């Protein structure tokens, strides 16, 4: 996956986890939590979907890497490069 593909994969997951949130105006560099309503339960779901869809494991200690869309892309691209 390219960085662009990783970004859309993450956006797709957030859309499924939080269908009532509007993602059209998300700033990639700002924390997701500050822009849309996402609590720790929702972050868990994002992690679970990454595992389910792409077999990517995100250990609990690394959840902060998913803070913003940009950090998600940086963190996940190496893990998803062969997918």
């Amino acid at each position: 996956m390219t960085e662009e593909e990783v970004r859309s994969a993450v956006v797709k997951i957030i859309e499924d986890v939080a269908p009532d949130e509007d993602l059209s105006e998300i700033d990639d560099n700002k924390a997701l939590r500050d822009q849309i309503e996402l609590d720790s339960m929702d972050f868990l779901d994002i992690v679970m979907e990454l595992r389910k869809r792409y077999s990517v494991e995100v250990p609990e200690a690394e959840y902060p890497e998913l803070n913003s869309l940009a950090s998600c892309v940086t963190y996940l691209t190496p893990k998803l490069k062969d997918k």
Partner: protein
Amino acid sequence: MSGIAAGIRLAMFDKKVCILESHYVIGGLNSFYNMKARKFDVGLHAVTNYVPRGTKGAPLTKLFRQLRIPYEDFKLKPQNYSEVVFPNKRITFTNDPKHLEESIAKEFPHQIDQYIKLIEFILSYDNLTLDKVETQTAREFLNEVFTDQTLIEMILCPLTYYGSAIENDMELGQFVTMYKSILLEGFARPDEGVRQILKVLKKKYKEVGGELKLRNGVTKLIRKNELITEIHTEKEEILTADLIISSAGYLNTLNLIDGYEPQTPQKFTGMMSFMESISCLSKPQTDFNYDASITFFNTRENYLYEDAKDFIDPCSGVICSPGNYQLDKPIDEPVIRITNIANFKLWEDLKTNDIDKYYHQKEDSYQRSLKEVFKFKDDFTSAVTFTDIFTPHTIKRYTGHINGAVYGSPVKTKTGKTPFDNLVICGTDQGFLGIIGAILSGISISNLYGLVK
């Protein structure tokens, strides 16, 4: 309810899940049954925590998100209004907290500033930390806030009835949770009652690949050191599992473990049980001026929420009119449900020793219950076409709850942990009560032990 929610969460993320249920229908304390061609709900007066679609951060919103169920599927219809009726005092509330504030300002003008402080406290209270321990009970806390005992009791009345496992009081954290869910958020009802909710949950569970075995309760758990290694069922199956989540109650669950003696069982034995009568009417309940969705009442000078000395305590209770919600179409048959505190032991002994007397006592207690209600409400007996009554014995029989205790153990196990590594509990004894509470409990426990760990 909590069990199926836990099952949905785990199966959704490809865990192999099997639910074992003793009964032949799902739902537990909030199930349904048919009698004489009528459909009845066991519980369901009101779904608490009602908020409109899209309300940010609300428990109901989280619930739908976590279960990936569309908000519309529960078909929730908001209440008209509800009331708390005491001798010479009446407060009303709707799903708009301003209404209650105005009602309190009118009935208790000298306490309104304190009331506003109470709301500030409730809104700022953190009830997400599972291992938080409070030193004060709700009543001790309220005694510091208000000087008027009647107001304190009028606030405690609906909250204890809808969720206290202890007598005449409640745990402070529980009080805050219940306050938010009933008096700040509010009540609703699915058009078709609890069946609607159960139908949606069951469908979702099947869709995500969960397995459901009905009439196949757990009879025995086998342990090896700190692990449960085998699950034995009524149909003589033996299952194994990495994780066992039990919604059968803390003590009930430990009692299933072969050769294990739970410590201090009295501590985990609840006793608050209820009798409920369902009166079907030939005319709308509103013809008799039953306009509220729910009425919580007390006819004594002081409100008592304690085990009944007699078969029932008719002097306090809950009246529910399922037709008084903003339903799309009027309810098929008008119904009034009345709940009173009831003494488990008296009912259980009578049922065991003299079945005829048991049935007579049901009728007697029903008449006593009505007589008390008719002291402050109109008499509707002329319109009654059919009645069904259930007692603490019925509750025990169909749900397994020790002592028919609807709200389970007086001591809650918020972390869900048991002395066994792969056995946790969810639901009533974890401390989340009511339908929405139970579902949220199932979600949080399965997240914590099934997904994160």
